């Protein structure tokens, strides 16, 4: 299968990335994926505390990590951001990818809550997305205590977290809340069917190739992957109705498995009368801004997320 070329700087960096973890993550490599996710993308609580006030909440069904800008008064409500980490549905914790969230908080003072949802394959669908929704519901029920403005709560996630954010937004719509004013979906994992061209064009190349994707979906929905009866809350691309959803931000690299499903999701949101902002970054692999954080395109991509957040949060 032909695919667009990787950006040269990204291609060079991928050599080191793939030396640590192959492009094709098979079920045998899930342990390695978990180790690397814990080691590389998950700052410790102490590290997080240097940038924000941190509270661990275990009161609800799902452990939550609450981050508040330092020295702010909870009596004055701030915008809220509910965050779902990535890791292919199989790896990561509420601390995974939290640097993104801390960077956003540095730009826009807001309260962030990251959910420690249960992971597949030990906990297949519906556990992950139900955990995500239960955590969101808890946040919705405690907005005042958390110091979150009820009118300004967005949901955000990357990769598997992006798929879960989209699924949670569907659940919030269908179960009557909590109200969301935006969904920030960074290279989201939306479709188990592997029907788009991009979902099969990477084999043994880049990050999260078609083999990894099959491993992730099999972990989440088992043998049902690609067949009949997979829930749209697991694979939001399957949702027949995308109306009534909050404004969406969708972002993918042009050289990634999720490219076409993200583009299709944005198109269907527009067709359903919704609002969506779509970015397809040329030469970008899945998660390119973490692969080459210093590259101009990575800066642009990060700035686009912040700009969108500013708009939907009407700062």
């Amino acid at each position: 299968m032909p695919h667009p070329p990787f950006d040269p700087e990204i291609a060079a960096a991928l050599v080191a990335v793939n030396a640590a973890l192959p492009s094709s993550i098979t079920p045998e490599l899930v342990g390695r994926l978990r180790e690397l996710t814990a080691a590389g993308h998950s700052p410790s609580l102490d590290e997080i505390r240097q940038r924000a006030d941190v509270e661990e909440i275990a009161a609800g069904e799902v452990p939550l990590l609450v981050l508040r800008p330092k020295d702010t008064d909870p009596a004055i409500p701030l915008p809220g951001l509910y965050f779902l980490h990535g890791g292919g549905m199989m790896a990561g914790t509420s601390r995974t990818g939290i640097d993104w969230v801390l960077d956003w908080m540095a730009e826009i003072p807001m309260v962030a809550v990251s959910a420690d949802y249960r992971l597949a394959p030990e906990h297949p669908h519906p556990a992950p997305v139900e955990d995500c929704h239960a955590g969101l519901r808890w946040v919705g029920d405690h907005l005042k205590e958390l110091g979150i403005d009820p009118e300004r709560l967005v949901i955000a996630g990357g990769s598997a977290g992006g798929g879960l954010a989209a699924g949670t937004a569907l659940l919030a719509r269908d179960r009557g809340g909590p109200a969301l004013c935006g969904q920030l979906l960074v290279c989201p994992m939306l479709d188990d069917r592997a029907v788009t061209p991009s979902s099969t064009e990477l084999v043994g190349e880049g990050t999260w190739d078609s083999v990894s994707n099959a491993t992730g979906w099999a972990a989440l929905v088992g043998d049902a992957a690609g067949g009949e009866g997979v829930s749209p809350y697991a694979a939001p691309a399957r949702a027949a109705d995308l109306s009534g959803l909050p404004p969406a931000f969708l972002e993918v690299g042009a050289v990634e498995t999720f490219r076409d499903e993200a583009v299709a999701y944005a198109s269907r949101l527009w067709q359903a009368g919704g609002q969506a902002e779509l970015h397809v970054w040329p030469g970008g692999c899945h998660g390119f801004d973490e692969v080459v954080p210093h590259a101009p395109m990575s800066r642009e991509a990060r700035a686009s997320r912040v700009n969108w957040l500013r708009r939907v949060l009407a700062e």
Partner: protein
Amino acid sequence: MQAVDPGAGAALQVVAHFDALVEARAGLEATVRTAAVLAGCPAGLAVPARRLLVRVEPDGRRADRGPGSGLSGGRSSGPGGVVVPVPGHEGAVTWLDRSPPGDAEFDRVVLDRLAATAGIVLDRTGTGVSEVDPGAVELLLDAGAGEAARVAAARRLGLAVDGEFVVTVAAGHAAAEQGGAGTAVGLAAGQSRAGGLGAVAGTAGQQSRAAAPGVAEVAGTAVHQSWAVRLGDVEVTIGPATQPRLRRGERSATGPVVGVRELPLSYQQARIGLRLTGAPGPSHVDTTTLGGLPALAEGCDSPSAVAEVTGLERVTSAYSWALATLTAVAAESSLRGAAGVLHVHHSTLQSRVELLEHRLGYAVTTPAGRTRLTIALALRLLRRNR
């Protein structure tokens, strides 16, 4: 990719990463950025031949003018710290601006890989010192090409678009040897407006790789390059007007001082000037001193020109000394001066001139006769040198 801590394995990591950049055909900015990020200090690349400066901060941001440069322009930030030349590209340098100095060994590895990788990129992108597109030089001289195309070609060659230039054309053995077989192009000389830099290459064999500006001059100063290209049997050099006129090959001529847009005119004039050179006359001419003489080129095939040259050559073929004698008589202010140039006795010259005047059918020592002779000699050269 993150800054790596100097230590065991770090050097290998650096080498592997630059290798991967080469493999992926990354560009110059990505290459410099890699060095800056790996080393954790500003890194830079200056390529005077392309008037190019790339400077990247350790956080990956491009900052060609260095930190703290505001609207006032700031100090241009050229090479500083540890500087290493780019192999195969004269004048091009890379540097790591680490202050205070860090692990010298580690920096050396990063810098060596930066320089080597930058050299590879410059080779590949093709308009470097060693690999010039001859077509770009030809385009500059082609009056038929669009002005936009010619200006673009000038930029590609690193010529200052607002600069002033002179075209020199040269013919003969020396020029041919310089060019080598086929179409060859080389950097003839690099000279900055500030002056005092690399020597102008004026002799055969030196010119393909001559001195380039010193590194201190790279960043802010306009760098004026000279380019040489072989077009047919002549070597054409485009050089800055400030550069001393080149005398190259057996015969050469320089055109008027022009801007980039008028280079074809300077070239055309120089080519006509070259046709007016050759023994026993001058071997090098500056066409700006020729007045209206080059205009004869347009009429040198007219019947009157053909008749005049035929008459002249009938005489010059009769006596081996005739052509030199007539050339000297036309060029010198007196017969005594001509005798000196010809190394013959004044009375010998006197009798030869009388003989030649008889054969030509007109006096060559009267003002009108000298003018006719001068024109006849010019027409002869124009007809012989095409």
